[in-house]
């Protein structure tokens, strides 16, 4: 399933909220940012975009993402985004 703009055949873009925590928050120097992304995108590609945009390249390989408060289990999966969706960049956990 691919969402396309019927006029241009390009994927629709959506505005999502990207959240940063812990070391990501410090490196990106923000806690929350609106980011425009394709409505369908492979999770790893989305993560790469965010990593480049927000200066997280040094920790890229330790990051996972959560989409609307649920972990994206496999970064090879495609995710489908809607305007206003919440995407969190998750560095290694250290609760407990």
């Amino acid at each position, binding site marked *: 399933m691919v969402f396309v703009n019927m006029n241009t055949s390009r994927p629709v873009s959506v505005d999502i909220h990207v959240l940063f*925590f812990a*070391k990501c928050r410090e490196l990106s120097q923000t806690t929350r940012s609106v980011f425009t992304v394709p409505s369908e995108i492979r999770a790893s590609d989305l993560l790469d975009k965010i990593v480049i945009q927000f200066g997280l390249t040094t920790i890229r390989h330790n990051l996972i993402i*959560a989409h609307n408060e649920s972990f994206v289990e496999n970064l090879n999966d495609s995710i489908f985004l809607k305007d206003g969706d919440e995407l969190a960049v*998750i560095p*290694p*956990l250290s*609760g407990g």
Partner: protein
Amino acid sequence: MNHIKLIDCPIDVTYAINLISDPSCGASSIFIGTTRDSFQGKKVVSLAYEAYENMALKEMDKICSDLRATWPDLKHILIYHRLGTVPENEASVVIAASAPHRSAALKAVTFAIDQLKSRVPIWKKEIYEGNHDAEWKENSE
């Protein structure tokens, strides 16, 4: 009942234990995670915790559901995690469970702390004495 909280002030362990006690239960198991005073020879002055709060609460709730699916006899489950600055030697996390028999209570608490460390979005930064850089920790165990 499930008692789940992210807390900005000291965790009252006695209160937590009372919350999970129940006349039908012969066993309560409690785990207390405490900030340690040193790491690799560096003296820890304090810890700061932050969470992706809404998602953390959701994941803590999922842990409770998983526990109840595995040990249906569990009566009460409590998962309290502290956020913000935690001085040395204070509890950062308390997990407790009650059940008619000990096996469920003991196993559930062990499982819950393992799960919490691996899937609840909470992060800890250690602040050291002297001019060592503060460090974001990673759970590895």
